[in-house]
């Protein structure tokens, strides 16, 4: 009798999760599945869908613009994530120090770019990157030259990475600070009594104990940066000559400018596969270290 009452109560759980389950399935899971279906058609969004099987994928693997965009996005992701992790970890170490007064104030200042509206601040960076803009004025104080931030195919991607790092570094810094504060103070104290140097403590205590945070930051960062859209969209529209055309921008242009819905769905499937590959690699690394 008691168990039937408990069961009845527990069934109420279905009602609580139902709205979330419906919306998530309908708005995210269903479109994910639908991307696979749409990728098998040629479709301009207005006329009839024409079944073409795997032809989109065959074309995709021959399309240099796509392959370039994909490779560029991987390069962008790993370089940004690498810089972001090193910088945000260093900032966290710098600002979590007990010797620093007003560290809450400094943490709040470092976090400011995270709070700003990315497309709005991208407009500002675009102006600062201009030939006669303020960044070149600063550069010319030290060197007798100016940098073609957005005009050079070789440099433009790095300019975008600079903005990416500036926008996100405070976010990951706060994640690292939260992780640092979880490490018991006594560990450091007893190591100091044993005469361990700062560097030794960093590698023997801080980094090993911070491993869950490091992995989490890495995962969050890669997912986020890989899908970056507003920065290249506002600052360079993918130019000059596709030098900053990241994958999301490539998908957006193909679907909504050139109306190649089937083709861009195939790219979307590629996007999922890349994400899947990332997570498999990450799980592997995680398990490897666990042993």
């Amino acid at each position, binding site marked *: 009798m008691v168990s039937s009452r408990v069961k009845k109560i527990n069934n109420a759980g279905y*009602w609580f999760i139902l709205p979330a389950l419906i919306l*998530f399935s309908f708005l995210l899971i269903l479109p994910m599945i639908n991307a696979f279906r749409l990728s098998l058609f040629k479709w301009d969004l207005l006329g009839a869908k024409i079944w073409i099987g795997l032809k989109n994928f065959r074309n995709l693997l021959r399309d240099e613009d796509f392959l370039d965009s994909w490779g560029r996005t991987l390069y962008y992701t790993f370089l940004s994530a690498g810089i972001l992790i090193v910088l945000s970890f260093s900032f966290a170490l710098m600002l979590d120090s007990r010797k*620093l007064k007003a560290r809450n104030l400094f943490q709040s200042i470092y976090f400011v770019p995270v709070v700003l509206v*990315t497309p*709005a601040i991208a407009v500002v960076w675009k102006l600062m990157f201009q030939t006669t803009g303020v960044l070149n004025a600063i550069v010319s104080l030290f060197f007798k030259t100016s940098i073609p931030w957005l005009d050079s195919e070789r440099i433009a991607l790095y300019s975008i990475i600079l903005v990416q790092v500036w926008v996100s570094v405070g976010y990951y810094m706060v994640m690292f600070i939260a992780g640092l504060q979880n490490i018991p103070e006594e560990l450091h104290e007893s190591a100091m009594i044993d005469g361990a140097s700062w560097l030794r403590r960093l590698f023997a205590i801080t980094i090993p104990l911070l491993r869950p945070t490091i992995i989490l930051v890495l995962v969050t960062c890669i997912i986020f940066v890989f899908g970056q859209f*507003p920065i290249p969209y*506002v600052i360079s529209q993918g130019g000059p000559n596709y030098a900053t055309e990241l994958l999301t921008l490539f998908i957006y242009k193909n679907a909504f400018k050139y109306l190649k819905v089937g083709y861009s769905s195939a790219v979307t499937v590629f996007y999922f596969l890349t994400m899947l590959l990332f997570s498999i690699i990450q799980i592997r690394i995680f398990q490897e270290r666990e042993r």
Partner: protein
Amino acid sequence: MASHGKTKEIITRVAHYLVVILIGLVILFPFIWMVLGSFKFNKDILDIPVKLLPPEWNFSSYRNAFASGPFGRYYLNSVVVLVAAVGLNISICTTAGYGFSKYRFKGRDLFFTIILSTLMVPIHAVIVPLFVLMKRIGLVNTYLGIILPLSLSAFGVFLMRQFFYAVPNELLEAARIDGAGEFRIFRMVGMPLSRVAVVSLIIFHSQYVWKNLIWPLVIVSGTDLRTLPVGIALFSGVFFTPYPDQLAMSVSACIPLVILYLFFSKYFIRGTALAGIKG
């Protein structure tokens, strides 16, 4: 010897402060430049030599931004989308988080895994199939079409579930003995206890909705339903772009979050820190 160690410590300390302050200035610089730029005249913004402070102050850029064209409308649209999407998000996340943590039922872990798996797929990745879906059900160019996808966050469900785990079951059991229904218990016992977590989630999700560019850009084709990020990204003048006006728009778009941040910076940072210690 002792005094030598002391001098060394002082030097390290001063260097520490200098580096922290210098990096802080670099981080704040684009923001400061944006605010000052919005008070410059067009000719001074990209002029050589560069002028940090406006040589003459232009106080009309903000008036121009709001008076010329639909910027006020964009602002209103953004507010409508924000309120609706965040409200919906909180309702979904609190109920689901409560359901996943306080009841044992068949398929619970499976359903939770399904929702959590969408963490790997941000909205950026599904714009094409999502647009096709919205077109089919007639939600292109509607508020609802903008709001629904922006109201979801798997992280929010996760956060509320973690939070409700910490609420003792005895409290709920006591209410049950008093004869309260399940939903009433959630509302009268669960919700009031979750206030801190809900505020963190509101602030966390508001940023996401207020800043999002790609989805409103895709789902809206005219100018009527554009949100602030879209309006700013697509802004240009007829013959030339009036930069001070565009910067005034950028400042106006950032101001609500900045003011909120000044008062509630702890909540902003806590929401992020929570994202950092999940699991």
